[in-house]
């Protein structure tokens, strides 16, 4: 029972932060809401037994990628977004259509997922770093090496694009 209460708490935090991300006008409030979403998701991964993924989410996503976003927002300092004038039916039909879409998706998920036992904290023991290491370096070795080349390409691209023009 405490699993369900904890899940509902973290899910509520994630959804509130995600709504805040979409609604806020200043990009830095959106960025901090996204950090909140990632923190809540890291706790949900911990509940699903993915302790390495939870730690990687905190270290890589919330601790490095989002800091990069916040740096760029602070450096560019572009300010809040202006409100845009929308047609009347668009502003009234937006949120109900979103809710209807989520409802349809939830119904399809409920019908299509084969019956499976629920999630209990501690039932999955394979998420530890030993298992991930074994799998990453034996079964998924080729994708691992390819992603390291991908990161190298990304570094080169970022350095070339952000370089100052040499006169």
């Amino acid at each position: 029972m405490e699993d369900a209460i904890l899940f509902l708490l973290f899910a509520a935090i994630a959804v509130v932060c995600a709504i805040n991300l979409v609604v806020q006008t200043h990009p830095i409030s959106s960025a901090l809401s996204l950090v909140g979403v990632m923190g809540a998701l890291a706790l949900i991964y911990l509940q699903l037994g993915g302790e390495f993924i939870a730690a990687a989410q905190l270290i890589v996503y919330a601790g490095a990628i989002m800091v990069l976003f916040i740096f760029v927002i602070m450096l560019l300092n572009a300010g809040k977004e202006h409100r845009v004038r929308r047609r009347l039916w668009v502003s009234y039909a937006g949120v109900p259509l979103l809710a209807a879409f989520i409802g349809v998706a939830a119904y399809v998920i409920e019908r299509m997922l084969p019956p499976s036992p629920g999630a209990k904290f501690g039932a999955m023991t394979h998420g530890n770093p030993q298992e991930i290491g074994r799998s990453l370096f034996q079964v998924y070795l080729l994708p691992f090496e390819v992603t390291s080349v991908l990161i190298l390409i990304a570094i080169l691209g970022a350095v070339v694009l952000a370089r100052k023009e040499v006169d």
Partner: protein
Amino acid sequence: MIFNFFVVSLIKSALVAFVLLTALAYIQWVERKVLAHIQLRVGPRRVGPHGLLQPLADVIKLLTKEDILPSHVNKFFYFLAPFIAVMFALISIAVIPFGTEVKIGSFSTPMQLTDLNVGVLFILGLSGMGVYGVALAGWASNNKYALIGGLRSSAQMISYELPMAMAIAAPLLMLNSLSFRELVDGQGGFFLGVIPRWSIFQGPFPQLVSFLVFLVAAFAETNRVPFDLPEAENELVAGFHVEYGSMKFAAFFMAEYANMVTVSCVAALLFLGGWQPLWPVEYGSGFVPVIIFAGAALICFSHAIKPARPFDRITLPVFGVVFLGIAGIFLIPIAATILLPLFWFLAKVGIILFIYIWIRGTLPRFRYDQLMNFAWTFLFPVAIVNLFVTALAVALTSK
């Protein structure tokens, strides 16, 4: 039984929090005294004997000072930034083990708040999240000096996280675990019966280079001299905390000292063997704390005969008696088994903190571009080469 677990955890958390917060205040006293003696002066000596009540006076001053909220700051982030800085600095103490199991009657509990089996990753993640406090403080202050100081400080912290993570990864290759308790247990035992199996002495590749890289990266992560350009008082008008006063300013300093303590604990656990003693207990390493404290008592008594200041005729003998009492506690066998690992761990952490303060009194500070150059062109390649050599040594010597 789960209720029992909650009660015990609550008691341990309260104890650790209390000890940590008091220690943070007194580390500042030690720093001021040591820096003063390095610079041939005396340091605080008016408030209480030898200035021992100076941290209390500082806390009272900071709490009762008027807390100004400038009108040009972004209020939500201005309040959030010191909160985030202190929160992530204080949470990391939860996975640090201080000693072995404590057995009182039939009840035993480890001297640690929680033993995550990804403890090392937890500490790395939290030090990454601590960057947000600094960056938000610079942004919220709405002040160009604060913004530049905040951006420089956070860029420095991120750049030095990489060599630190590589320096942490090297002993993990030899010890094969991410949980702190298993790391320290893997450093138990002795070579040839005498040399301890700490990481810096352990085959197949002694981790001396990793230890040095980790210490240098830790100095930069915690924004301490010689890497403290973004927050020194005479550079950039004190950097990212220029618009903060009284309690929020104290929060940033508490966060800095808490980070220092965490990083010293991690260094002691990963490289110096945690609570493992320097030589085996059979050869008498159980008497080291007794000798140290009895020696301190002797020094106090010998100085009390001809004191430099008149009131020292009273305070020095009192300190001497207190030290003799502590030496006596270490002779009781029941207390000694609990306190001896704690003593070795605290001694190692204390030595690393002393090195922090010693270097602050000795070295000048780096300029910002020299600092970033040092991270990316020297420290990061050294850390990578060290990791590579360690991995090669482990792969060649494992069965």
